[in-house]
Structures are given as structure tokens and as C-alpha cells.
């Protein structure tokens, strides 16, 4: 077109970004790459390669190595070898390296941006303005944590060798999110990028070595899911950090169960985008563009479920459809587009088929009428209107540029619909009424909530999910803990093997007047109840004397206890002051009956009276301690680079199952239950299997201390069996299993139904009397989940 033509039409015309440098880099490598191990590229052991192609054109871009067991082994060994020296380098030394990596990213910003756009299909605008600058920001920010580590994380040590598996939607950015905190904390890394998009990771590894990162600190192995599985299974890996689909997350949880590997999972979502009738409608329409038409909708936290208050739904629909008409879909390197290509044909097919299903199920489909390139993996911005919560497209993550819309009537209903999902990654709330917005945000079960905004990210603000969106946080102080472990726990030894159960002796006292029979019951919903099966088990002293009987809890008792705990939700909303008062009151009432509890412990365990009294005193003090923490283990305020704040709130996880160890039957029970209830969780506790009566005696203390019914539920019985029931219960949000390796393994392996958070001891014994090991933040951190509420402001 000539100047005169453009003058008439006022079209934008082509604006291509040059790709010469990126192509030259590929050519320098003959478009064929090995793994990056111990500071250099090495050919794959078995000589196998995969091809990776350009989504926008379908053309082959390069060949990448397919990692086999020997490659993974070599990478893990390199990381292991480097880890000691890397940790010994100290915080300042690592800070210098991370700083250098940040600078390196900035020096090569355009090369990374162009290569990413070619390889992934996303617009150069996004890689240039978001992915690459944010990646650099993560290295700067975490250089800071490395610098401060010895002071701020003095009680923590690095985890060791970290296996990291990242997805294709933000290849470089996810690399940064993963490796920056891991390296800062003194770990070394084996990273497995997605097979569709491995190139920026390889470029990063190469340039890191040039920037002086020591060999073995960062290793990159490429390949498909099989390579990832090899990394997960490798016994030399201390932790797996995974971002990807919930389905694969479950497999990884299963594979790592019982191995002692720690795990963080950042999984899928179906995040709600809630617009109230007092919102800035046009602002919210732009928010939708950022929510679902950012990165072609291939964003785990994409605001993909639009919830509109009924009164504005029609206006919103009209304005949104108008806005869709101005979206431009085109080649990723065109600087005047809003959306590029979907990553691969398989994804395109999935999107098409889900949209078809949505339409079959009654949705009205709107698609932008603008042209999209005929070749390549392109899909237009799409709105599915008139979708109901029961539709497939309302529950399934589409992972494409497809928004589904539905309506609500009241704020309560908005919250109900928003939370009516298995996921809990993110949510967006639009209202110009501060009281409404700030009331809704805490009620949304999501790890990130944006008020009048969407898809804001920063290294200083933790990101991660609730529920089946995974666990763990990336970014912020909360993210650093994912790559550290308590120094106090690093010296734990395997629990001594329990002595064999004694043989029951006769209970007769002859013709003396017997003591009045006292039957321990289960404690469910604030009431003493008989076990569902109506079976009991004898509780014996070490010498075999019959001390009493405890109920033999079963599946149904757990079911009832979980239901009671679920309905005690008011506890989560009680003020921290109120919870503190109750914990102090528990201590007071336990103290009043201290001698009785000491006798009970001595009888059950055979320890001396003095030792038993020590356990009671320690339990009283522990309750006091959590009374103190209840209103002091607070969240924090992050300062991301925007006019506004991000509130990192400590929220209770919900209903938590707790299996208690046999040692210290009272103190162990209190040490696990108290931090949970202090933070507003409700507990279903399985006391020490062998010595359950201290816990069942304790329900009378609970009854006299104003603890609302359902907050603490006690089910006695076979610990390992009950742990399995708890682990498989999809309405249990977290499970703490202490006492045996078997219980630990079962808890982790069976938790996959709803991907509950687990805290297990792997059969390693804790010293319950040692505060550093078993009291305070070391457990409180596991008793909360961090929700970050972003509040940009201004008028």
C-alpha cells in the first residue's frame, strides 16, 4: 500500500520485529542441541533428538536432545557435585552470581524476546515487555535474598539438588521463577523445560556459563514427559518443583510419595473474574482482555470464568463483543498484534473440541471477526455466553483464548460460584466500592486475588494455588521457604522401633469396690460419641495392665468428623484474639488437671511420675505458646513495583487431618493440634494409637474451654488405617502424618484425589520437648496458606 492508500484506510500495516540474531544463534548451533550439563553442551547419551517447531508457521526450528536415564543421572551428579561448593560460597557470593544473571538477561533482552516469540508463538510485545523484564526482575529480587540469607533465614539450610520441570506457556519466565529462588538459597538445579519450548532455557544456560555461573549449578536436560519422569524418579534429587497440568502433578505426587523428596506443584486453574454492578465496566472489559487474551489464554491463572452481576450482564456483553472486534491476531513477531499463535496443533485441537462441546451444551459463541493467519496454530478470541456452572466448559481448563460467562445475583452468590471449582489459583474482583471488594477477596479460595486488576506478577509477591491448583509459593519471602529446610529438622533420626505390644493381664481387683467404669469415646462435633462400628480396643500399660478401652474408629467416624470440622467454618472467621483466649483457657484447664494427666501418661507409657509431669507442663506451655502466636503469626505487605500494595495474608488451610505419634502422647498431640487451631483450621486428630487416653481425656478439657464444636475432633483407632481414610477424603484440605514411615507414605501417595497439602515425618523422630524443633513458625508455616491480594489504588 502507498502512503495515499494508508491515508485513506488508516490501517496499521506490517511492523515486523527482526529475527536475524535469533536465527544466527540457532545456526551457530546447527539448530541441534545437546543437554547442558556441568557447564557445557553434551550430546545425548543415546543420541536421540526431538524436533521443535515454530507454532506460527509449522516449520521446524531445531532439534533438541531427548533425555534418557544416563543423561538425567549425569545432570543430577553434576548438580550434586556442585552443590556443596555453591552453598559454601555464601549468600554474598551467590548474590553476585544472581545479579550477574539478571544483568545478562538485560544485556540479551531482545535476543531472548525474539527467540521466545518464535519458539512459543506468543507476541513479541509480551516477550519483550513482560516475560523478559519479569525474568530479570526475579534474578535481581532473589540476588537480594541470597545477600540477606544468613541473616533472614539463619535457621534454614538449602534443600540440596532440585529437579524442576516447567511448562511451555512462559518458558523463560518459569525458568526464572524456578531457578532464581533455588539458586539463591544455595541449591543446585536440574531443569527440564517443556519439549515444545526448550530453546530459551538452552540459550539461558549457555549465557549463564559465559556470565561465570560455575559448572553444575544449573543443568538443563531436554526431552519429553519420559525425561521428566526420569528426573522425578531419580534418587539423587532432593526436591521436585513442577509447574504444569494437574493431571501430571498428581502423577508426580504419587511418584515421590514416601521418598522424602519435597514437592511444590503449580497446577491448573479455572480462575473467576468477578464483575459487580458498581465496577468500572470499561476497565473490567480491558481486564478481561488481559485475563484471557494474554498469551492466547495459555495462562494457568487466566481469568477464564467471567461472573457478571445480572444487572450489568447485558451491557458488559455488548461492550466486550465490541472490544473483541479490535483485537488483532497475527504473526508473533508483528509488533502491532494482541495475540499470536497457540503453542502446538495438539493444543489447537483441544481448544476447538472444547468450544464445540460448549456450544453443544448450549453456549452462544462469539468470535472476533478480524482476520487470523490461515496457516499455523491460530485461534480467534472467543466468548462463550450463556454458560452454566454445570457445563463442561465452565469446569474444564481450556487453556486457550476462550472465556465462559455466567451471571450472579448477590455478593454471596458470586463467592459461591467463584469457589465452585476444584481449583484455586487466582481470582479477580472488580468493584469501585472498597468495602465490597475487600470483603470478597478473603472469601475467595485462591492463592492470588487481584482487585480491579488481573494477571499482575512480581518477584516480591508469592504466587501459587489453593486446592487442586497445587501447593507451594513462588516469589516473596514465602517462596524462599520452598527451597530451604529447617536446620532443626536436618539431624532427625529414624524413630526407634516400638517395643512389642504387651500381653493383656487380667483386670480383676477381686472383691474390692472397683473404680467407676470410664469409657473413652470419640469426640466429634463437640460431642462424645460412640464409634460407628461399636468396637473398642484395649489400652494397656507397658506391663499389660488394662487401663481402659478406646473406640475403634472407622471410615464413617472419619467421615462424620470431617463433616463436623467442615461445618465449624466459623472458627476460621473468629478473631485471632478470640482464638488466643481459647488456647490460653485450654492451658488453664489442662493445668488444673495436671496431676491426673501426668498419672495417665505414666500409666500408659511407663515413664516416671516426674517425667510424665514434665510432659504435662511442656504441653501447658505449648498451648500458651500458640495462644501467643495466634494473633502474632501475621501476614505481610509486599511492595511490588506499582502504585498499590499486595497483602500476603495467612489464611487457614481448612480441615486438617492429624495423625499423632506414640511418643509423648499428650505433648505430641498438643504440638500438632495447637498450631493448626491457632491459625483457624479445624482438626480431625487421630491420637497415639498405643496411648490414646491422654487425648481422649483431653476432650473434657476442650469441652470446658469454650472450644466450639467441630474445631477439634478426635477419632481413636488404627492410625495407619485412619490415615489412609483421611488421605483419600476429598474434603480434607491437608494432612499431617507423624509417627511412622508407613503413615507418611500413605498420606502422600493417597493425597492425590484433591491434592491436599501434606506434612509428614517420614518416620523420623522429632524431639517434642525441643522448641526449636517442634514449636512456633516451623509448624505454623505449614498451618497456613498464603493468599496474596493485590490492591492497586489511585483516583
Amino acid at each position, binding site marked *: 500500500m502507498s502512503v495515499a492508500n494508508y491515508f485513506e484506510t*488508516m490501517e496499521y500495516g506490517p511492523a515486523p520485529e527482526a529475527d536475524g540474531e535469533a536465527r544466527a544463534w540457532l545456526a551457530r548451533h546447527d539448530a541441534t542441541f545437546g543437554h547442558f550439563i556441568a557447564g557445557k553442551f553434551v550430546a545425548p547419551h543415546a543420541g536421540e533428538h526431538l524436533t521443535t517447531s515454530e507454532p506460527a508457521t509449522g516449520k521446524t526450528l531445531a532439534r533438541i536432545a531427548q533425555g534418557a536415564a544416563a543423561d538425567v543421572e549425569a545432570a543430577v551428579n553434576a548438580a550434586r557435585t556442585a552443590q556443596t561448593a555453591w552453598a559454601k560460597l555464601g549468600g554474598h557470593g551467590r548474590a553476585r552470581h544472581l545479579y550477574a544473571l539478571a544483568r545478562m538477561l538485560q544485556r540479551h533482552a531482545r535476543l531472548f524476546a525474539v527467540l521466545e516469540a518464535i519458539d512459543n508463538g506468543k507476541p513479541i510485545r509480551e516477550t519483550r515487555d513482560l516475560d523478559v523484564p519479569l525474568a530479570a526482575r526475579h534474578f535481581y529480587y532473589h540476588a537480594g535474598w541470597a545477600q540477606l540469607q544468613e541473616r533472614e533465614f539463619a535457621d534454614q539450610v538449602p534443600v540440596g539438588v532440585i529437579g524442576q520441570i516447567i511448562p511451555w506457556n512462559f518458558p523463560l519466565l518459569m525458568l526464572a521463577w524456578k531457578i532464581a529462588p533455588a539458586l539463591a538459597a544455595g541449591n543446585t538445579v536440574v531443569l527440564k523445560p517443556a519439549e515444545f519450548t526448550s530453546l530459551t532455557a538452552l540459550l539461558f544456560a549457555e549465557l549463564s556459563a559465559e556470565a561465570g555461573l560455575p559448572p553444575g549449578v544449573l543443568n538443563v536436560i531436554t526431552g519429553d514427559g519420559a525425561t521428566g519422569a526420569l528426573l522425578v524418579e531419580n534418587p539423587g534429587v532432593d526436591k521436585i518443583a513442577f509447574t504444569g497440568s494437574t493431571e501430571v502433578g498428581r502423577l508426580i505426587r504419587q511418584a515421590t510419595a514416601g521418598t522424602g523428596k519435597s514437592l511444590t506443584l503449580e497446577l491448573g486453574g479455572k480462575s473467576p473474574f468477578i464483575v459487580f454492578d458498581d*465496577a468500572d465496566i470499561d476497565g473490567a472489559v480491558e481486564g478481561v482482555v488481559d485475563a484471557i487474551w494474554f498469551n492466547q489464554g495459555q495462562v494457568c491463572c487466566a481469568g477464564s470464568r467471567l461472573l457478571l452481576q445480572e444487572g450489568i450482564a447485558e451491557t458488559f456483553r455488548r461492550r466486550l463483543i465490541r472490544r473483541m472486534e479490535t483485537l488483532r491476531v497475527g504473526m508473533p513477531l508483528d509488533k502491532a498484534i494482541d495475540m499470536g499463535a497457540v503453542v502446538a496443533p495438539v493444543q489447537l485441537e483441544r481448544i476447538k473440541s472444547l468450544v464445540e462441546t460448549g456450544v453443544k451444551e448450549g453456549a452462544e459463541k462469539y468470535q472476533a471477526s478480524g482476520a487470523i493467519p490461515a496457516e499455523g496454530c491460530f485461534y480467534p478470541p472467543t466468548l462463550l455466553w450463556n454458560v452454566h456452572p454445570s457445563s463442561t466448559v465452565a469446569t474444564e481448563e481450556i487453556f486457550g483464548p476462550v472465556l465462559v460467562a455466567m451471571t450472579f445475583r448477590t455478593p454471596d452468590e458470586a463467592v459461591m460460584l467463584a469457589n465452585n471449582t476444584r481449583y484455586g489459583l487466582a481470582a479477580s474482583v472488580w468493584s469501585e466500592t472498597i468495602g465490597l471488594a475487600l470483603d470478597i477477596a478473603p472469601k475467595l479460595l485462591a492463592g492470588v486475588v487481584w482487585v480491579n486488576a488481573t494477571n499482575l506478577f512480581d518477584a516480591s509477591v508469592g504466587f501459587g494455588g489453593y486446592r487442586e491448583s497445587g501447593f507451594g509459593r513462588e516469589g516473596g519471602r514465602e517462596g524462599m521457604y520452598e527451597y530451604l529446610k529447617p536446620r532443626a529438622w536436618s539431624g532427625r533420626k529414624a524413630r526407634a522401633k516400638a517395643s512389642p505390644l504387651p500381653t493383656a493381664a487380667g483386670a480383676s481387683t477381686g472383691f474390692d469396690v472397683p473404680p467407676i467404669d470410664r469409657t473413652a469415646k470419640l469426640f466429634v462435633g463437640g460431642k462424645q460419641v460412640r464409634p460407628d462400628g461399636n468396637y473398642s480396643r484395649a489400652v494397656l500399660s507397658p506391663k499389660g495392665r488394662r487401663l481402659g478401652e478406646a473406640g475403634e474408629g472407622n471410615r464413617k467416624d472419619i467421615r462424620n468428623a470431617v463433616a463436623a470440622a467442615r461445618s465449624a467454618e466459623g472458627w476460621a472467621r473468629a478473631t485471632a484474639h478470640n482464638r488466643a483466649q481459647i488456647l490460653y483457657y485450654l492451658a488453664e484447664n489442662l493445668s488444673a488437671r495436671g496431676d491426673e494427666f501426668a498419672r495417665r501418661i505414666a500409666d500408659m507409657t511407663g515413664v516416671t511420675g516426674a517425667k510424665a509431669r514434665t510432659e504435662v507442663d511442656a504441653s501447658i506451655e505449648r498451648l500458651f505458646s500458640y495462644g501467643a502466636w495466634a494473633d502474632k503469626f501475621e501476614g505481610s505487605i509486599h511492595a511490588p513495583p506499582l502504585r498499590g500494595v499486595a497483602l500476603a495474608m495467612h489464611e487457614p488451610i481448612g480441615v486438617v487431618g492429624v495423625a499423632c505419634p506414640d511418643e509423648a502422647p499428650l505433648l505430641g498431640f498438643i504440638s500438632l493440634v495447637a498450631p493448626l487451631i491457632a491459625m483457624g483450621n479445624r482438626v480431625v486428630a487421630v491420637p497415639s494409637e498405643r496411648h490414646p487416653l491422654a487425648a481422649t481425656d483431653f476432650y473434657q478439657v476442650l469441652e470446658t474451654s469454650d472450644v466450639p464444636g467441630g474445631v477439634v475432633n478426635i477419632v481413636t483407632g488404627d492410625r495407619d488405617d485412619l490415615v489412609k481414610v483421611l488421605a483419600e477424603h476429598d474434603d480434607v484440605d491437608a494432612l499431617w502424618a507423624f509417627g511412622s514411615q508407613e503413615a507418611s507414605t500413605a498420606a502422600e501417595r493417597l493425597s492425590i484425589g484433591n491434592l491436599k497439602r501434606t506434612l509428614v515425618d517420614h518416620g523420623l523422630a522429632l524431639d517434642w520437648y525441643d522448641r526449636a524443633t517442634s514449636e512456633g513458625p516451623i509448624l505454623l508455616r505449614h498451618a497456613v496458606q498464603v493468599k496474596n491480594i493485590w490492591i492497586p489504588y489511585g483516583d
Partner: protein
Amino acid sequence: MTQSVFIQNPSPLAMQTPAPGGEHPHAIPRNSGRALEMDWVDDIRINLSAAERRVASLPGRRTVKKDAQAAWLLKAITCIDLTTLNGDDTTERVKRLCAKAKAPVRSDVIEKLGFAGRDLHTGAVCVYHRFVATAVEALDGTGIPVAAVSTGFPAGLVPHDVKLKEIEASVRDGAQEIDIVITREHVLTGDWRALYAEVRDFRAACGNAHIKTILATGDLKTLRNVAKASMVCMMAGADFIKTSTGKEGVNATLPVTLAMLRMIRVYQERTGYKIGFKPAGGISTAKDVLNYQFLMKEELGRDWLEPDLFRIGASSLLADIERQLEHHVTGHYSAFNRHPVG
């Protein structure tokens, strides 16, 4: 709840059509104004952070290169209200400005752009009342309208009847466009009825001349104030809404523009009338003006890139555009002294 204040439509306005003379080639039906509808004011919500994000990301989403860029810049020239509003203005100074308005780009550059023989001129010349007659005479036969700033520009604090007389005098002298300033106090105190009544009177005084209502957005401070004032002015019969006098501490900005464009869109949805937009002050580079053009096209559409719906109040912008156009045709970076001044 509807809180409409019915004020009889001044009947002469409703039927008016653009004045002859070719300055409104697309014959956009003229806004008749309408009764003040308080609901249309009260329901306005605008979130500053969201507005800022929108305008911040736009330059990354839209760009024009090469021939397209030259065309967009030429189009921008046709939308410039070439302006001089200084205490030291003189008749000769105004004549010089008018000469530049008629021939805004060096003829050899125009030729190389393939625009030889086309009548390319600025959107208007904008002056104080004192120089209206001079400008009208200097531009006679060119089709370039003269715009007069009025109503006690820039502060707008002279008596109301004096304001009306000033408008009438400028219209008598041949001004086809009147840029009025609103009384900021009405906005700052939320007295929308007073604002409506004032602008309605100005509109009546303008007769056939088009009225641009200057909101002085830098004084209004919040986007909410800006959006509400925009809506009231349109209901009162504004043909254009304009950001600034150029004399406030902060003049045209992209977030303020976004707020005003959204109100134009809502007003069109509700009444069918297309209202023009004029940012003024602070737009001095080709890069700046392109961002405004992108916002116009994205938020309102193609029609709003033409001078009957888009004007740019600027004095130094043209010189930068000329340099860019020369660079486009020669491949060399240009200098200001290579282009004749206005």
C-alpha cells in the same frame, strides 16, 4: 432511580446542520444536546489504575512503520488546530501562523510522499478573539476554519454575560469554532446542573459555530470528575470535548483521553451522536500524536481519525512531524531549521 432534570431543548440547536464551507466534509449529524440525565452522571465509574494499564500497554500493541507511519502523520496534520495563545501575539504573528496552516509541509517532501496537488492543510487555526478577523481574512478561500478560544479563556472566571458576549463577538467576526472553558468550580463542587446550564447557554450563543468544551482536566484532577464533566457537556450540546487550555499544570494525558473517549462512546450508544475529541497541550512529538491516534482508533473507531471528530491543539507538534516526514522520504534524520516556521 431516574433523576432527570428536564430543561427544554433550545429549539434552534436541534435542527442545526453544519455550516456550509466544506469544513465538515463527512457531515456528521450535529449533537442536538439533550435534557440533563443525572443517572448518566451518577453511574460513572472509572478506575485510575485500570485506565493507566490500558494506555500503558497500547504503544506496545499498536505501531505503524514506514508508509503507514507517514500516512498517519499526514493525517495528524489535518487534525491539528494550529494554535497561538500568547500574551505577545500580534496580527503579523497570526498571519504567519495562517500561512503555515495552509502549507504545513515543505512541497518537495509532499511531492515525494505522492501528495502533490492534494489540498493538505491543518484542521484549523486557533487564536484569541482579538485575532479572529485577521485569521479569517488570511484563510479566506482555503476552507480552513478559525477557532476562537472564548469565555474568559483560560480561567473562565469572567461574568457569564461577558462570556456569552465574547462568543457572539467571535462568531460575528467569522469564527466557525468556539473553544469555551467551563467553570471548574461547578465540577469541583459537583454542581452538574450549573455546568449543564452554563454550557447550554454557550452552545446557544455559538449558533452555527461548533463548540468545543475545554474541561481543563488538569484542574479537575480525578478521572471521575473528567468523565462526569464530559458527559454533562455532551448532554448540554458540545460538538467536541477538549482536555485542556494548555495553561494548566498538567495538560492532555492518555489516561484522561481514555476517560473522555469512553464517555463519547457511551453518549453515542445512548443518543446516536458522534462527539469529537480534542487533546491539547503537551503533544509535541510525532511519537506522542501516534499514541493518541491509536487510542482514537481502538476506542472509538476509524471515523475518529478525521478532523471532523478529532483535533489536536498544538503549536510545536507540526515541526516534529515535518522532520519525521523528511526522514521518511530521504532516509536522513532531519533538523528543525530545514522546515519553515509558522
